């Protein structure tokens, strides 16, 4: 007589070897590898996107007549890429033969260094971007009338008593200095926010994984 599925199930699991649990010795290896690989993938995509953007920015900015914005910004992106390329090389040097905890700790200290450097860089980058934007709209296209001069002329018609410094209204210079100052002051915070926006999820997972592994070690 054919056995019912219930009988197959019951009899099958009566045998001793049917329910041997695997050892929990490899618990975090896969997780660590997946996490770091995911980060590496995101990091690579991010920098390729910046490289493409920087390359496209130059011809487009010339075409739309704001080269004084596009060229310095593209140069800045290239500089950022150069700095982060060094980080990329360091990341690839992390010893994958170490145990999962050591591997994640090495990765974590690499991430901390990356965040620290990019936070410092952001204090310069954001004012620089602001400066490029102003320069772009002030100087206009190559070999053409300077829109900034037209702006000053119109401004002087509206406010004839304005005080000028090097031909530029003082109030404009003050607004520019305040803008640069604020961006330099908050650049670090903006930079951190920016990193969190892109890598926040994965960095939280990293912290959680490390804290669990430390917990398990106790």
């Amino acid at each position, binding site marked *: 007589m054919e056995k019912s599925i*219930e009988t197959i199930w019951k009899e099958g699991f009566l045998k001793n070897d*049917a329910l041997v649990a695997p050892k929990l010795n490899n618990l975090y290896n896969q997780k660590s590898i997946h996490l770091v690989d995911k980060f590496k993938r995101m990091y690579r995509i991010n920098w390729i996107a910046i490289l493409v953007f920087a390359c496209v920015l130059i011809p487009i900015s010339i075409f739309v007549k704001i080269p004084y914005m596009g060229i310095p910004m593209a140069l800045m992106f290239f500089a950022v890429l150069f700095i982060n390329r060094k980080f990329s090389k360091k990341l690839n040097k992390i010893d994958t033969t170490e145990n999962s905890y050591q591997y994640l700790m090495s990765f974590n200290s690499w991430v901390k260094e990356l965040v620290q450097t990019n936070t410092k860089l952001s204090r310069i980058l954001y004012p620089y971007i602001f400066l490029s934007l102003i320069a772009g709209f002030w100087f206009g296209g190559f070999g053409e009338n300077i829109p900034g001069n037209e702006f000053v002329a119109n401004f002087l018609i509206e406010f004839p008593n304005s005080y000028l410094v090097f031909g530029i209204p003082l109030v404009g210079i003050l607004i520019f200095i305040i803008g640069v100052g604020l961006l330099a002051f908050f650049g670090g915070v903006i930079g951190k926010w920016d990193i969190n926006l892109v890598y926040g999820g994965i960095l939280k997972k990293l912290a959680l994984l490390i804290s669990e592994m430390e917990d398990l070690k106790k």
Partner: protein
Amino acid sequence: MSSDFYTNSIVPYSGIIIKICRAYTDSQEDFEDYYQEVCLQVWRTKDQFRGESKWSTWVYRLSLNICLTMIKKKKNNRQHSVSDYVVPDATEDNHAFSDESLNLLYDAIKQLSEIDRAVILLYLEERPYREIGEIIGTSHNNIAVRITRIKERLKKILN
């Protein structure tokens, strides 16, 4: 994970976890990954267990949820990186048990949909229909009908 927690709260229920993980995996490597993930999640979520159900029900529910999530993730990964997907070795012996009938039953169960697999596993573990309904999120009448249908399908596959 403290060894006390593992010994008292996971080891007695490891059979449940093994049976469920086996139904959702095709290789020993995947099975070990799923098993470890379930154990880890049981440990992680232990504080969320409020004693409203039996601990075994909690473990069933968690094991099924994790297996379903991992299957989904695996499918997504395959879609995103087809080139990275390692084709399982056709020569690999995926038969996990020495009992050939049980292996065949598992092969048949694996041909069911993911939810039907969960339903039949719970049924074979003699969980009451009401509890199966709670875990799956449907009425116990629906479960009764579904189990009859699944059993017929399994018989067809096995024959």
